[in-house]
């Protein structure tokens, strides 16, 4: 099982969730990021994620490995979309199984935050007014 992956098509998190399951794990926290139809007051028609794939996959796997050391969890995984997405589509999925709920929530949030700040993936938004932009947050 690859614990961090890029996907160029819509994916179903159900099989990923199943692979994180174990009879010792009593808790499963997960997160999904969905494409919003607005950003900073502008109507968003759609977006495109671009990645530096080799580095994104290596950095994503490092984040999962770090989470497994920092938190008392059983297992974790993350998948991030690349390519074109419409509003409402799932852009990122994070799942964490653990014996107890505290570490499951904490690790899920930490992985998401690290992916957002460290993994070389960029969002290009297309707006209803005809303009478009790469997002390079301060």
């Amino acid at each position: 099982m690859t614990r961090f992956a890029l996907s160029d098509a819509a994916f179903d998190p159900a099989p990923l969730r199943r692979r994180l399951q174990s009879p010792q794990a009593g808790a499963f926290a997960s997160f999904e990021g969905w494409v919003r139809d607005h950003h900073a007051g502008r109507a968003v028609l759609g977006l495109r994620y671009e990645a530096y794939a080799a580095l994104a996959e290596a950095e994503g796997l490092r984040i999962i490995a770090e989470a497994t050391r920092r938190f008392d969890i059983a297992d974790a995984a993350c998948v991030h979309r690349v390519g074109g997405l419409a509003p409402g589509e799932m852009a990122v999925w994070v799942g964490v199984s653990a014996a107890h709920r505290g570490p499951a929530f904490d690790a899920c949030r930490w992985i998401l935050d690290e992916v957002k700040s460290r993994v070389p993936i960029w969002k290009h938004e297309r707006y209803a007014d005809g303009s478009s932009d790469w997002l390079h947050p301060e």
Partner: protein
Amino acid sequence: MSVTVLYFASLRDAAGVASETLPLPASLPALYENLREKHGFSLPAQRLRVAMDGEFVDWNAAPREGAEIAFIPPVSGG
């Protein structure tokens, strides 16, 4: 004696190409400043990270012959 430079996101749009092969530069900051002038990149080096051969490296790392170098603008995944 050359390196390959990869461009992503707004840097790729500004450069108009996804990669180019360039003579081995003296340093990573010198390489970026040259490219910034050449392609009109708006992002200053302080806002970028840099990677060599698929690994993040320090801006002080010495450019290696044949290396694949990528300047990483602020990311926006998730």
